[in-house]
């Protein structure tokens, strides 16, 4: 790994006004998506697609990734100050962060969490820098057989995302995979499921799918009543001093061992398909409890219980880039949507990125680190005023988001017929939303299904059915079986203790 490539990418970002300007713009936008209930990072990416339409790949990708990387940091403020976890991954912060705010330590909790998020984001990037030289030869040695199995590993992610709704998750995954088959078949060149419609020849794009299954159902949910319901905000929670926030930031250095360990943990969790998303926060929290000398403090306002999930959930963003960019296998549903957006921008994720696009990869990694630092700085300054943002009326939010959802759908393919598909599929997404069906499984099927199919046919053409018994295939089958058994046991197995069962009372990413 050439250090020149690493640092020249950073220098390029810092010395290019357009790139640094886009990161500066992405920070408040990502914070907004993070702290408004019902929005979140996944919607953020798809709703910002119109803004990056026609942009060069680097600035477009830097903008989207910087925005996505800090969404969870934006969610820290409403989670700690108002007890409102706007998205799944911030939920662990409620356990100790909200009690700290109620105990009059809002500033300290906020400082500890924001400092930890920032450190987690930067440590995640450093870990990635150290891992990349080791991973590089493996990436280049991958053949279609390994890519097929990697896609299957990604699909087994459904077992982790679906939780108790495994059957529903599989149905939704099959639904996404079938939708992903629409268009010209790359093997035979014949049209599949296009019904003679020209606009379906290019296939069904991920952006429209996400907008139909996420944006519309969320907006319909928010817009059911005449006016949206807003969280109750305790005015005492937003009264804190800057010194208290600084004290919280210092807590990260007082507990430096925990901060560093959970940052590294978060990075590695982010790299594993199926363990990304909210798992990083909860696993780091569980680690913090397990190493504590006095675990009874947890749940009542322990600052370590705020630091651990904050570092974990931000460090995983850096880790999640590795499988997404080099293997085209997203680590979670957020990265699956990001993968679709990167492809739309003209970036081709895959092993050749190691050879051809390493400066681009490093620019993206640095963009995540810079966005994390800037976001922390912004929130330390204006955190107490975020209540107004978290409290935006649904009646105002719904129609504006609807306009941008339509714009994103149209621009993804330049076909007006896509708008009809969006409205039609939106109804299916809404029924799934109301019945808590795991919608991320649709994205997994839509993104990874076609990858698995193409790699399968290539591997069959190269080796015939014998590719199934290649050593790497057997190893990956073993990994898939282990991951499936682990996820099924985690979901259906006996609960270990009250704390473990308590976490299931918090809304999960799968249910969102």
């Amino acid at each position: 790994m050439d250090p020149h490539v690493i640092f020249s990418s950073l220098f390029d970002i810092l010395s290019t006004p357009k790139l640094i300007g886009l990161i500066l713009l992405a920070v408040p936008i990502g914070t907004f998506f993070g702290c408004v209930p019902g929005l979140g990072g996944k919607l953020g990416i798809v709703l910002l697609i119109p803004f990056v339409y026609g942009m060069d790949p680097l600035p477009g990708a830097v903008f989207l990734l910087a925005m996505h990387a800090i969404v969870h940091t934006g969610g820290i403020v409403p989670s700690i100050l108002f007890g409102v976890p706007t998205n799944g991954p911030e939920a662990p912060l409620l356990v100790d962060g909200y009690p700290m705010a109620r105990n009059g330590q809002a500033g300290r909790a906020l400082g500890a969490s924001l400092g930890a998020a920032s450190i987690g984001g930067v440590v995640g990037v450093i870990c990635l820098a150290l891992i990349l030289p080791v991973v590089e030869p493996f990436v280049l040695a991958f053949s279609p057989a390994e890519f097929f199995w990697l896609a299957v590993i990604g699909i087994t992610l459904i077992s982790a995302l679906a939780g108790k709704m495994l059957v529903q998750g599989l149905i939704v995954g099959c639904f996404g995979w079938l939708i992903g088959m629409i268009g010209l078949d790359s093997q035979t060149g014949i049209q599949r499921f296009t019904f003679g419609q020209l606009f379906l020849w290019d296939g069904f794009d991920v952006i429209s799918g996400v907008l139909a299954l996420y944006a519309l159902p969320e907006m319909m949910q928010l817009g059911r009543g005449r006016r949206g319901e807003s969280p109750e905000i305790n005015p005492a929670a937003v009264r804190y001093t800057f010194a208290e926030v600084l004290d919280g930031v210092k807590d990260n250095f007082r507990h430096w061992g925990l901060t560093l360990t959970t940052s590294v943990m978060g990075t590695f969790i982010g790299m594993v398909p199926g363990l990304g998303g909210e798992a990083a926060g909860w696993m780091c929290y569980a680690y913090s409890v397990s190493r504590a000398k006095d675990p009874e403090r947890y749940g009542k306002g322990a600052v370590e219980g705020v630091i651990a999930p904050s570092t974990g959930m931000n460090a995983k963003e850096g880790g999640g880039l590795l499988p997404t960019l080099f293997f085209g296998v997203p680590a979670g549903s957020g990265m699956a949507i990001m993968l679709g957006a990167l492809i739309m921008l003209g970036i081709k994720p895959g092993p050749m990125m190691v050879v051809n696009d390493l400066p681009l990869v490093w620019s993206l990694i640095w963009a995540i680190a810079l966005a994390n630092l800037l976001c922390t700085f912004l929130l330390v300054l204006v955190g107490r005023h975020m209540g107004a943002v978290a409290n935006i009326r649904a009646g105002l939010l719904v129609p504006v988001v609807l306009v941008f959802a339509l714009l994103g759908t149209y621009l993804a393919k330049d076909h007006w017929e896509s708008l009809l598909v969006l409205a039609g599929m939106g109804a299916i997404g809404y029924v799934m939303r109301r019945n808590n069906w795991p919608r991320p499984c649709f994205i997994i099927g839509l993104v990874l299904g076609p990858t698995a199919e193409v790699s399968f046919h290539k591997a069959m053409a190269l080796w015939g059915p014998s590719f199934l018994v290649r050593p790497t295939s057997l190893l990956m089958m073993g990994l898939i079986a282990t991951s499936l058994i682990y996820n099924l046991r985690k979901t259906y197995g006996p609960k270990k203790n009250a704390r473990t069962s308590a976490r299931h009372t918090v809304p999960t990413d799968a249910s969102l």
Partner: protein
Amino acid sequence: MSSNPIRPTSPAILSGVFLVIFASAAGVAALNYPPGAASMPIMIGAVGAVLSLLQLVVELRRSRGAFEEKVDLRKDLPIYGWVWGFVLAVIAFGFLPAAPLMLLAYLRLRSKESWKLSLILSAAVFVLLYGLFQRVLGVPLFEGLITPLILDGLMPS
């Protein structure tokens, strides 16, 4: 809590039926494709159809008491109607006139916002669409199916 059987016309059942039909139809339609293009759709369609059927049977066997009806058509249909209103207006008249006007209509009629706020938001969306997207970024916004006909009628070449 009632123990009445769930209605066969409930949205959960209807969506279950839809998924069974969708997955089966995809699998059956793929039978006409060459083997290379047919294998995956048939396999995934079959798995999807069997699982959807299984889920449908489970839903039908549940009592309405156990299964809370999650979709309330009286509340949900109006907002879904608005979604279609936005879509059809944009398809007919294009983004520039339709999106701000539908936004204004929604804010006034559904959200009951003040004229002042509704007009400011609608104007802001128009400026964003026209100024930022169309002029600055050069994004080609859809003109609608009817608007070009009207413009041609008003300004014959």
